[in-house]
């Protein structure tokens, strides 16, 4: 009798255990994916690490069989779920990164889309070549950068679309297409700046340029003097190649003090010492200083003074083009579970610089935002991509905010962001889409007047909405 009871208990337990495991297995595979903003954790079906083209073809077949959507991810530095979608099969392209061919004479490189700029720099630097355009850091992938149509700091180079010769795309239909300005040309401006919504970029032919020696020229100035200085001294000078400006976030000089670093051409020979790729220096110290300025206003003041000193010391310093394109980024990596750094970017027509800065200062103060860093790049007008953000010659303001990850704090951030977007729109500017999806439907339409046509094209090329991400889910449907 007692035996019977124990036996019954064991059998019941075993059944319940099996039931639980069975239920668990029927649930979505339970992989959570996130991006550097770590704002959304989305339960995706699974992440497939791509190494060869067949892996992509297989994943596509599986997605169709199981009727699941696909999201594509590169280095996952976008911050609003552009690489994610609920219950999607996520293709992680980072392992799909072979360099297929370098044509030294025509200065072209063919690479698979998961390759990072870092990998490309390592391959082309010994040949005396450099990228024409890329972001200020080299940790991004070719596919991710093409899909946002990244811009850099070059004064004479448009956004990335300018240096793309052609690429191959795997469509939702399973067909592989060669795409350039002459072949299947209508897809060219859709895919570049298309946030992975038209297909998977397999590999691309990118235009390169020569590595060279630049001289840094650093000028501190007041923001009122910036527009004229930049127009007359930087843009007019035949020697300036690249430039970046930085604004103070210290309380006593908030968004007033700034300095401009220009990179000037020299005809000096590229010595081996200069040409060699540098690794990040002083990451530990910068990280610490950055940590202080996240937390305290006096930290912001101290960092500003340090930066100013440091940058002024660099005056006249010689640097190769390749090294100028690979500055530190890892000090920004930030793993606090309760807070996060959010990046945002606004493109403001050059003649609207002053009203934008004044508006920015007002909003940051009124909304008590923790603004950590402000850099400014020049982005020449380029309307080739369907979702072009540079309808005018513009200044790109890159803003880094620190915020708590709690719901109320993020809600406040969302409202403040909408104020900032409205400010940009009032000045005839736009905002960048790889970041948080805080803009309203009205705002995205105003900033990207072609967006409806973009959605229509999306549905023509991908009628089953196989390629999905949170960006399209939020605005496109």
């Amino acid at each position, binding site marked *: 009798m007692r035996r019977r009871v124990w036996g019954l208990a064991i059998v019941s*337990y075993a059944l319940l255990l099996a039931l*639980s495991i069975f239920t668990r297995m029927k649930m979505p595979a339970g992989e959570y994916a996130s991006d550097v903003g770590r704002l959304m*954790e989305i339960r995706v079906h699974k992440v497939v690490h791509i190494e060869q083209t067949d892996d992509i073809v297989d994943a596509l077949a599986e997605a169709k069989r199981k009727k699941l959507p696909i999201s594509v991810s590169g280095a996952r530095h976008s911050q609003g779920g552009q690489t994610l979608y609920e219950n999607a099969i996520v293709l992680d392209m980072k392992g799909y990164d072979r360099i297929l061919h370098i044509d030294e004479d025509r200065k072209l490189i063919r690479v698979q889309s998961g390759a990072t700029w870092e990998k490309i720099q390592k391959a082309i630097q010994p040949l005396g070549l450099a990228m024409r355009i890329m972001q200020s850091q080299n940790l991004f992938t070719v596919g991710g950068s093409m899909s946002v149509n990244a811009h850099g700091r070059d004064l004479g180079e448009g956004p990335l679309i300018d240096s793309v010769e052609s690429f191959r795309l795997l469509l939702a239909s399973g067909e592989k297409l060669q795409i350039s300005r002459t072949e299947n040309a209508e897809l060219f401006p859709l895919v570049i700046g298309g946030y992975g919504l038209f297909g998977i970029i397999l590999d691309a032919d990118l235009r390169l340029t020569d590595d060279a020696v630049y001289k840094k020229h650093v000028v501190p100035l007041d923001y009122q003097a910036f527009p004229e200085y930049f127009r007359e001294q930087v843009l007019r000078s035949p020697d300036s190649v690249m430039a970046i400006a930085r604004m103070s976030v210290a309380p006593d000089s908030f968004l007033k003090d700034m300095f401009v670093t220009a990179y000037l051409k020299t005809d000096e020979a590229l010595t081996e010492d200069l040409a060699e790729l540098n690794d990040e220096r002083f990451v530990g110290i910068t990280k610490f200083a950055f940590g202080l300025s996240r937390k305290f206003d006096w930290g912001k003041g101290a960092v500003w003074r340090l930066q100013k000193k440091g940058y002024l010391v660099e005056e006249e310093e010689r640097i190769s083009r390749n090294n100028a394109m690979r500055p530190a980024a890892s000090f920004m990596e930030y793993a606090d579970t309760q807070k996060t750094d959010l990046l945002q970017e606004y493109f403001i027509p050059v003649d609207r610089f002053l009203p934008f800065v004044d508006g920015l200062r007002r909003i940051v103060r009124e909304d008590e935002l923790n603004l950590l860093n402000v850099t400014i790049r020049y982005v020449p007008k380029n309307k080739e991509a369907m979702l072009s953000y540079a309808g005018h010659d513009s200044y790109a303001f890159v803003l880094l905010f620190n915020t708590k990850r709690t719901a109320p704090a993020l809600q406040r951030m969302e409202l403040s962001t909408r104020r900032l977007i409205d400010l940009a729109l009032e000045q005839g500017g736009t905002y960048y889409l790889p970041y948080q999806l805080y803009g309203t439907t009205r705002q995205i339409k105003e900033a990207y007047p072609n967006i409806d046509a973009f959605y229509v094209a999306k549905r023509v090329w991908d009628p089953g909405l196989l390629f999905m991400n949170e960006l399209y889910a939020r605005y496109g449907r």
Partner: protein
Amino acid sequence: MRKQIHEGRERSALRWMMLSQSMMTFGGGIVFPFYLIFVKEIGGDFTEYGIAYGLFTLCSAYLNGVFGKSSDRYGRKRFLLLSAWGTALLFLVFPIVTDIWQIYALQILMGVFGAMQKTCEKALLADMTEEGRRGEQIGRYHIGVSICSGLAVMAGGVLIDLFTLDVMFYLGSIVLFLSGLMLSGVGEKTPT
């Protein structure tokens, strides 16, 4: 002669009790250090983690009294068994929850079973040990249980590197269920 047999039985009962409770600590111990990760995966933050833990403690605080008294009446082994198997079943639910409120509910139930275990373990120990040697016996008992809880935390650390949190809950659950089975070896003086 009679007394000796009786003593032997008592000693082995104490040993079974130690084994069972050690396994109980072990089963819980391989999961608890990673509980925070679990709450985070569900989408909670530190506040919610705090609430979940607070619920557990508050619930068991009140119920300690209730169960203590009932165990005087109905027997302590019964409650220990209920607690082990109850927790084992709850561990089967953890892997399939999707919302933070479900965790709150589970935590409340965990508090219920936790209270049963805590009070009845102590009371039963007092019953099973003899006056005069009680300290020595309880001391020996605790050596076993503490070693197991230490081992559990270490084993948990290794296992979590190898398996997902779900697997940890299933392992924990099986161990807890077995710890309940062990209690069959514990004889108990029937309450009067």
